[in-house]
């Protein structure tokens, strides 16, 4: 019943193509996006690219797996990059390089403010409670600042490939929407209402406007209180001078994402929820005419003994279980030599192996069905699979192993 298999996503070709300058890894939380991004960065570096990986995930383990004690807002060099020849023990061809960094959302935001406002005004903004809430909250700002940082890295032009890992949003789409939302917010009707009195100043203005405004501020005062409203107004009018700058930057990153040289990789685990998000994302990228390279299906269950079906495996396990309980009833010395300790141990081991195998076959079938659903809906989206790893990635070798699943088979 399996439908037509999807086209194969050739990650090696993507990272080998010098025209690829930005790879954006997106997907819902918990699918291994950050690890995949790091593995792609490493593999590209070992293909001779000069790569920076921008992550938003404060995972110490990931930092350690790249030989760094921690990640911060400055790109740090990762050691141990080997070309493929070097890995095979042959001579050295010039290798690429890998840097890694983690987004510091608040620092990045502060820098924008400092760049766009005179020192006095900047200080005023940085001290405002609403600015502090805005710049350190998780909702939207992180996505926006990730895009801002991406823009900065691209402009700096020190790397020929930027791999960016998007924030673990509740929905993968937040990351596309957040920059626009912030821009829209700063441009919004409500803000204009709130800033208007501060700009025009006092009563003359209040007399001139319609009753709607009075109702709105009345309600806001009721909910928030006058002091809060005043703080908001101060904050907004301080930001006012920066509006143009914000919009420009949001537009720039948006265009950057659509430009040739950018490739989106949607990362998902073979689970309903993750692939549902992946589907939304694929459709959304299409609507926005953003360049989707394909889907990376991470943590796919591998079954070495695939020729033994789950049903046969379970049936065989039952045969052994029956034999075990039979020998127990007769005191472990059943006729036919079925009851020695060695044989009991062999049976236990085999039962465990067969039950595990049946579980894996069931799981693999469920994963194929779920992945097949995605491909049926998006038959043209190329897919690359990364096998489930038995252990967490601890070192550069582990990252390399994940990267190898993108290589020739």
């Amino acid at each position, binding site marked *: 019943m399996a439908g037509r298999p999807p086209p194969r996503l050739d990650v090696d070709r993507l990272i080998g193509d010098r025209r690829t300058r930005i790879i954006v890894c997106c997907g819902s939380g918990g699918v291994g996006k950050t690890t995949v991004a790091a593995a792609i960065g490493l593999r590209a570096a070992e293909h001779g690219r000069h790569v920076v990986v921008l992550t938003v995930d404060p995972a110490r383990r990931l930092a350690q797996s790249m030989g760094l004690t921690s990640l911060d807002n400055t790109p740090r060099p990762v050691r141990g990059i080997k070309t493929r020849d070097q890995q095979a023990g042959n001579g050295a061809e010039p290798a690429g390089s890998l840097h890694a960094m983690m987004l510091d959302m608040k620092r990045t935001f502060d820098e924008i403010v400092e760049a766009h406002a005179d020192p006095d005004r900047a200080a005023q903004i940085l001290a405002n409670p609403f600015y502090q809430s805005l710049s350190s909250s998780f909702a939207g700002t992180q996505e926006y600042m990730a895009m801002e940082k991406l823009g900065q890295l691209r402009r700096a032009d020190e790397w020929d490939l930027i791999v960016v890992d998007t924030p673990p949003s509740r929905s993968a789409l937040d990351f596309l929407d957040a920059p626009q939302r912030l821009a829209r917010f700063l441009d919004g009707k409500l803000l204009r209402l709130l800033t208007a009195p501060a700009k025009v100043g006092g009563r003359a203005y209040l007399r001139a406007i319609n009753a709607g405004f009075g109702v709105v501020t009345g309600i806001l005062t009721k909910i928030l209180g006058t002091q809060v409203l005043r703080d908001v107004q101060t904050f907004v009018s301080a930001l006012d001078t920066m509006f143009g700058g914000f919009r420009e930057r949001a537009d720039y990153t948006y265009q950057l994402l659509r430009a040739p040289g950018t490739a989106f990789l949607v990362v998902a685990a073979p689970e309903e929820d993750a692939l549902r998000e992946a589907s939304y994302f694929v459709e959304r990228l299409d609507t926005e005419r953003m360049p989707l390279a394909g889907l990376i299906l991470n943590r796919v269950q591998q079954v070495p003994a695939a020729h033994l079906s789950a049903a046969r495996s379970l049936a065989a396990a039952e045969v052994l279980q029956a*034999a075990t309980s039979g020998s127990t009833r007769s005191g472990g010395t059943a006729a036919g030599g079925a009851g020695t300790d060695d044989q009991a141990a*062999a049976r*236990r*081991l*085999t039962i465990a192996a067969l039950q595990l195998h049946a579980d894996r076959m069931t799981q693999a079938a*469920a994963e194929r069905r779920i992945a097949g659903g995605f491909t049926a809906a998006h038959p043209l989206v190329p897919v690359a699979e990364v096998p489930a790893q038995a252990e967490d990635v601890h070192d550069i070798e582990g990252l390399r192993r994940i990267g190898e699943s993108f290589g020739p088979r």
Partner: protein
Amino acid sequence: MATRDTDWDGVRLHVVTGKGGTGKTTVAGALALALAADGRQVLLMEVEGRQGIAQLFDVPPLPYAERRIAVGPGTDAHPGGDVFALVADPESALIEYLQMFYGLRHAGSALARLGVMDFATTIAPGLRDVLLTGKAAEAVRRKDGSRGRAYDAIVMDAPPTGRIGRFLNVSAEVSDLARVGPIRGHADTVQQVIRSPQTVVHFVTLLEEMPVQETLDGIAELRALGGIRPGAVIVNMTRPLALPQRQLQAAARGKLDQAELATGLKSAGLEDSQGLAGALAAELTEQAKTTLGQEEQQQRLDTAGQPCYRLPWVSGGIDLAGLYRLAAALREQKAA
């Protein structure tokens, strides 16, 4: 109504958090079912607008209204109670709040049109969060004339572990912005419920390094906030490997006795063709490595000193039957 000892007697608000991908919504659903046994009335609340509950219970998308979606497990003598679901979004919560406290009917929608929610979520997520936690607090306190309180328990499918501290610490988040005023007063009322012994926060995790780390960090964060009580650690999707320790170790090192496996296969009537024993041994080796890694993670979780429940991995995805199975497992372990 039958009473039995559980680990959370006296708790009315169960906040369920977890890293993305750990099955937080599934566990929240199972816990709601488990709590609805013995005729109890339970409200299952969602706050992130993903319609996860509707998908889990296989019902059409849910509105901002309390709808009955399932019946808890029960017997003839003690029929199960009802599970109601509510998808709370900040906009509707704001409109309701204005109606309830200020008698403002249309003002809320006017504000919504002006983008007040965009405003709140963008510059002051604390304000949005207080509306959502406020709705849960209201359900905890709500009275129903005939039977005392409206709900025996409320289960909230809360934001992920990385955000849970901020989400629940509404009073502090809001007071940074509003030192006085009505919203501050509202936040303080909500905070009383959240910091009372009626509320606990459960952490859903897998036995993998990242979710375990986030769980430990999350518990430490709540403790540091003071007054917000960490509840249980719920380990989801466990797949124990039924092997004695000696064989487990051997398997993990790739030193399994394949002859033993071949003998076992033969007595099960399976021929060791196409290297079956070798392939099965490879599967065991992989799983044994995973299992040993998981034991290590379990030990790390144990250092947190919170009650720990284990839920089995349900093969082929969770349907309603699977959900009841998880609910039964939670009850057996005295989670409800």
